[in-house]
């Protein structure tokens, strides 16, 4: 009798397992179909026409033919916009750091003085981060006119959001025991910040800031397309005037700037680690 019961249990368990396997298989099949569906709809929505790539080869070859050799006589003329591009990124990063540090202290759950300050700081960070830097640049061009200044402001405001969030996360992950130990020695709030919190998180903050500077240099290259100064503006002008040899020179400069910034940023971050 007991053997029959055991057999029945065993059959039941096997049946349940088989049913589970079937459900799992069906789920995987549905997920695969969904993935294929998503991929196919992207081709439809972006109106992808692979044949155009083949017919466009001739036009592209013509463009490259007219772009070489790069016009190095325009190098001196490109120097100032290049400096502007780098300085827009530096300005934006500095502004971002200065505003993001206090904001991050308010937005870090372990440091904030009140829930209201926490939610307000998180809202500012979320908003400045959600609006793309190009949109900020358009807004500032409207507000303060054409030139590098609106570009710097755009990167600054966008960096506040990006840096604020990462700074706040760094502060939240900090080991609080040494900070509480310092508080208990009778140190004041700002002394705890300057002698406890800053030394503990400074390398992380610098690393994040350097990474942001690297990102801002890339962004500052295209801000010129909306009139916010720098080499992007010169690139757009050269494209509109069909000065392809100047375009190729500017692209070489952009490549050098991006690669240089990336290497310097990576090397400095490695030293800080």
């Amino acid at each position, binding site marked *: 009798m007991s053997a029959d019961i055991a057999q029945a249990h065993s059959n039941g368990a096997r049946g349940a397992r088989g049913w589970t396997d079937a459900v799992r298989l069906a789920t995987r099949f549905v997920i695969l179909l969904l993935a294929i569906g998503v991929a196919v709809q992207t081709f439809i929505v972006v109106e992808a026409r692979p044949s155009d790539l083949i017919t466009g080869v001739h036009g592209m070859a013509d463009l490259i033919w007219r772009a070489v050799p790069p016009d190095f006589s325009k190098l001196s003329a490109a120097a100032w916009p290049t400096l502007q591009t780098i300085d827009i990124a530096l300005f934006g990063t500095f502004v971002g750091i200065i505003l993001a540090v206090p904001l991050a202290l308010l937005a870090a759950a372990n440091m904030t003085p009140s829930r209201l300050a926490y939610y307000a700081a998180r809202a500012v960070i979320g908003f400045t981060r959600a609006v793309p830097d190009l949109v900020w640049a358009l807004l500032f061009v409207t507000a303060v006119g054409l030139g590098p200044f609106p570009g710097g402001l755009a990167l600054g405001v966008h960096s506040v959001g990006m840096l604020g969030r990462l700074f706040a996360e760094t502060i939240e992950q900090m080991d609080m025991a*040494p900070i509480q*130990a310092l508080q*208990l*020695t009778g140190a*004041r709030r700002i*002394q705890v910040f300057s*002698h*406890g919190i800053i030394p503990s998180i400074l390398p992380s903050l610098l690393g994040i800031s350097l990474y942001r500077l690297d990102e801002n240099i890339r962004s500052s290259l295209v801000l010129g397309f909306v009139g916010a100064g720098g080499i992007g503006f010169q690139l757009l002008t050269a494209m509109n005037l069909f000065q392809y040899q100047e375009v190729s020179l500017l692209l070489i400069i952009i490549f050098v700037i991006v690669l240089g910034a990336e290497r310097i940023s990576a090397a400095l971050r490695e030293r800080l680690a």
Partner: protein
Amino acid sequence: MLRVRALSLRYPDGKLALTDFELEVERGELVVVLGGNGSGKSTLLRCITRTLKPTSGEVWLGETNLCTLEGEKLRRARLELAMVWQQANLIRRSSVLSNVASGTLGRYSTFRTVCRGLPATELDAARGHLADVGLAALAEQRAGTLSGGQAQRVAIARALAQRPRVLLADEPVASLDPEASEEIMRLLQRLARSERLAVLCVLHQIELAYAYADRVVGIRNGRIAFNLPRSEVSRDAVRQLYISEAA
């Protein structure tokens, strides 16, 4: 120097962590508190430092009742009350000297310390405290590079830099090997004598209590089980602390 009078703490869930606790620690005296896990040892220290607010009772530091203080007055009172934890709790990326000197920050204005740093006299004194704990040679080293025993000695040097009247130690040897543990206890005993500090030390190591304490306080379920000179504490009384905790 340190007097605890009828100290009680009831947690919001209604559990009594400390009940009518009475304790005195005189200058130059090393008192060890023994007790099982959850008996109220660390809670006692947290009530003394006022990181927990007692439900009732008094904690007197000299002529000051810490239980009545808040804000700036409490901060000032804490200058005379140094604490050493199970972990050294140093700022790992700062130098050993900077960590030790940070014990004096509260004695100076924020402007002074942030803009001009600590006075040279304090840095010299910090070097002296490092010499006291036998680590003068490591002053410029990063605190994060120290061994557990060295870090704990630096934490004690920081406590000394505070120029406290009372030194509280919450299981200061819990994460150290036997040799380093003996070293730390010898240091606490020596400092109690030479600096005339009132030292209150929570321990789990019964043998260390027998070797270094002037007085031993047994704590069980938040109440004092015994408070006796070391020589009068029987092994059986100590065993009872842990047996009844387990039961």
